[in-house]
């Protein structure tokens, strides 16, 4: 009897890139569902547009690069990047902006660097930052969470607005829009209002901000599930959350009227999505265990700094890209001591 010859180890592999990516997609579902409940059809439409664009771009780029499309489309990495970008976008964004962001992120942020595994920057955040810089007005127009300002636009209204830029039947965007809690705090603090006064408004809840706290808690739950499945390690999320929470806590103790506390920072914006889903993109993150903790801390601290003193309401995307740049250096200096060798 003849047998094929392969190199060791012979044991069946326990996992695959596709499985890892799909698990992250599953984990994002609860948070995304609550987001859709709060902000309406636009969230789902964004996700649909982004994923479709991602699949088309991915297939196109793989074809152009002469790579097999089947296995690389099945790895789901493009779908995941598109979903994460879609969740970061305002729900009533003109369709072409969403398409542009996803296409730029995947083509310029991923494939031009060599595709899966070779991109130094997080493709979703590349797309997001390009949009944020190019279309600052559109990118900061969020509708009010549905259960605060009544019901939002229905599916038809959403479709018409996203694809034409106008609501049918005289519905005005201003009527349903509201600054995000982070934005509101930043602007009103800039006008020397006290935090006490700002937080009395309807946009703010007990923990962070109305609606947003639920989104964040469900992203947290999804992230904890990923931790339990060992899809991600604890180092990056803990680093990010600590990096945001510790300075927030310290400053809010010093100046409780100028600096929002840790709970607000963790639950009012994109902290949980960023910490568990975006910063944990392994390709562009640091890869040593200790390095990942530093990487996460860096993202957290930068996020808090940008939110507090920067020109943008949220800073996760910039923080992630900045730390992407630092990842190779972090890896260089956090190599573990090899077994049987002296220190360092």
């Amino acid at each position, binding site marked *: *009897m*003849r*047998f*094929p*010859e*392969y*190199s*060791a*180890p*012979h*044991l*069946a*592999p*326990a*996992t*695959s*890139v596709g*499985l*890892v990516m799909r698990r992250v997609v599953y984990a994002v579902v609860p948070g995304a569902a609550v987001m859709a409940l709060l902000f309406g059809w636009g969230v789902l439409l964004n996700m649909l547009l982004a994923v479709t664009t991602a699949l088309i771009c991915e297939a196109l780029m793989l074809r152009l690069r002469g790579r097999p499309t089947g*296995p*690389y489309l099945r*790895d789901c*990495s493009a779908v995941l990047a598109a979903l994460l970008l879609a969740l970061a976008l305002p729900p009533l964004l003109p369709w072409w902006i969403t398409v542009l962001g996803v296409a730029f992120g995947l083509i310029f942020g991923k494939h031009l660097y060599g*595709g*899966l*595994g*070779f991109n130094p920057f997080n493709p979703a955040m590349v797309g997001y930052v390009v949009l944020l810089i190019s279309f600052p007005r559109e990118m900061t127009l969020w509708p009010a969470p549905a259960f605060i300002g009544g019901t939002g636009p229905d599916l038809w209204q959403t479709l018409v607005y996203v694809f034409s830029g106008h609501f049918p039947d005289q519905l005005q965007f201003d009527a349903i829009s509201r600054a995000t809690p982070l934005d509101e705090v930043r602007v009103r603090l800039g006008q020397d209002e006290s935090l006490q006064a700002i937080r009395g408004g309807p946009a703010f809840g007990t923990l962070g901000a109305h609606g947003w706290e639920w989104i964040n808690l469900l992203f947290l739950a999804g992230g904890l599930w990923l931790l339990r499945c*060992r899809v991600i*390690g604890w180092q990056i999320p803990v680093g990010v959350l600590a990096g945001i929470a510790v300075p927030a806590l310290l400053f809010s103790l010093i100046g409780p009227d100028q600096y929002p506390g840790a709970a607000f920072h963790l639950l009012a914006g994109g902290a949980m999505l960023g910490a568990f889903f975006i910063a944990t993109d*392994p*390709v562009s*993150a640091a*890869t*040593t*265990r200790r390095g*990942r903790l530093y990487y996460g801390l860096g993202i957290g601290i930068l996020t808090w700094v940008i939110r507090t003193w920067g020109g943008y309401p949220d800073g996760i995307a910039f923080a992630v890209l900045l730390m992407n740049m630092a990842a190779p250096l972090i*890896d260089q200096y956090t*190599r*573990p*001591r*090899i*077994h*049987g*060798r002296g220190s360092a």
Partner: protein
Amino acid sequence: MMRSRLFGFPGGLRLPRWKDLSDHAAIMTAPVPDKLIIPLQQHTGDACRPVVAVGDRVSRGDRVGQPPGYYGACIHAASSGTVIALENHPVIGGSAPCVVIRTDGADTWSPCLPPPLDPGNIGTETLIERLWSCGVVGMGGATFPTDIKLAAARAAGVRLLIINGIECEPGITCDDRLIRERAREVVLGTRLFRDCLAVDETLLALEEDRTEARTALEQALADTGETGIRVVSVPARYPSGSERQLIEQLTGREVPSGGLPLDIGMLCQNVGTVAAAWRAVTRGEPVTGRIVTVTGQGVCRPANIEARLGTPLAELIELAGGYTDSAARLVMGGPMMGVSLTTDALPLTKGCNCLLVGDNGDLPAPQPAMPCIRCGACADACPVLLLPQQLHWHALGQNLDSLRSAGLDDCIECGACAVVCPSHIPLVREFRDAKTAIAMRDLERERAERARQRFAFRQQRLERERREAEEQRRRKKEALARASESASGGDDPRKAAIQAAVERARRKRAASRPGHGQSVPTADDERT
């Protein structure tokens, strides 16, 4: 000194155990086959030279091969019969010279076996000699000559002796059955090493789910009144049976990179090795067989079989009930570090502890590799704290120096990284290839360096010879001048000038004339 706590080791994996397939099967004795094919290399080191000729009658235990130098182990006839060929034969890992014996069925022991020795009263020197003459090697699979290991241990001094009864690879149960059925041999063999090396402490390590083996050992310890050997159970986490990882979890100490356990005063021996040593000492029996586990979803009745070295693997498969319909892969060793075999028409050797026959579910064909996504699962699994994802990166770029500085030489090739890799990158194969490439490059560099030195030396020699020749010519000229001066005395200098001109003309004529007889002296003339 009693230790109760374990120290663990970084990384590692919980693997499926597959032990229940075969750990209930008592060791069965394989019949002696009609033909034994005994490879002349069954150990690390130099291949043996045959010491028998075609047509020779041999008995079981007769030496048929002897290593040419120090680094090797003797090979013995595994049964009685006639040597019918000395030829190359396919073996595990390629093709190698073998002694082929047609057995006579009598299976008589050699009359000239070494005499039994008193194990309680044996000097280290005698033990080393006996291990050498009986061809005892590391039976856990490493097949390092035990006598050399012991000689080094005696020279270095050993404080802690660890007898390794851990089979961390899925499926392998030959040591488990050995311990359960022959615990006494294991204990007495352990005592033999301990007494010879005068160690402070002796540990016998098992995995914690091997409860029957533990019971058997404790019984044997009680029966023999032995109190100086302690049985320690370690968690069943791969690769806990690897020498370095075993030492780390038992003692918390690390074997230095590139060093040996002896460097920190420790010695590890496999349970099969000490049992073989015990037989060699008390019965004068050379290693002529071993216990091998035949297991996996691809054999009908997984078994532990004691078979003669040189038995075709196919016969062992038959003893295990033959292949099932789903048999798809044949592996010598475990599924993590074993060697893939293309055929079962190979002889059993000293290092073959397991034949694993897998189906497509357990041991599937490798899947196409995707790019590394730097998830770090490999680094989490690495027991020596390497960063396989970085090594992979350097390997892709053929960056041998970076590979080396990133610790490639410390890789024990356990396969943990490759099994957890979601991109299915054949990391171990890459690292092995890179190690080969580095070795080749080093060899090439060494060769180039030698060639360079040789060239420089030659240039130097030519220069020296040229200078010497010049010197000689100068001296000859002077002597000639002096001689002609003294010979011609007060003669007319014109006469001498004419004489010289005649001489020159004669030489020129000789040089221009074609003819072999003349050309030789001319050349000589020119050289001097």
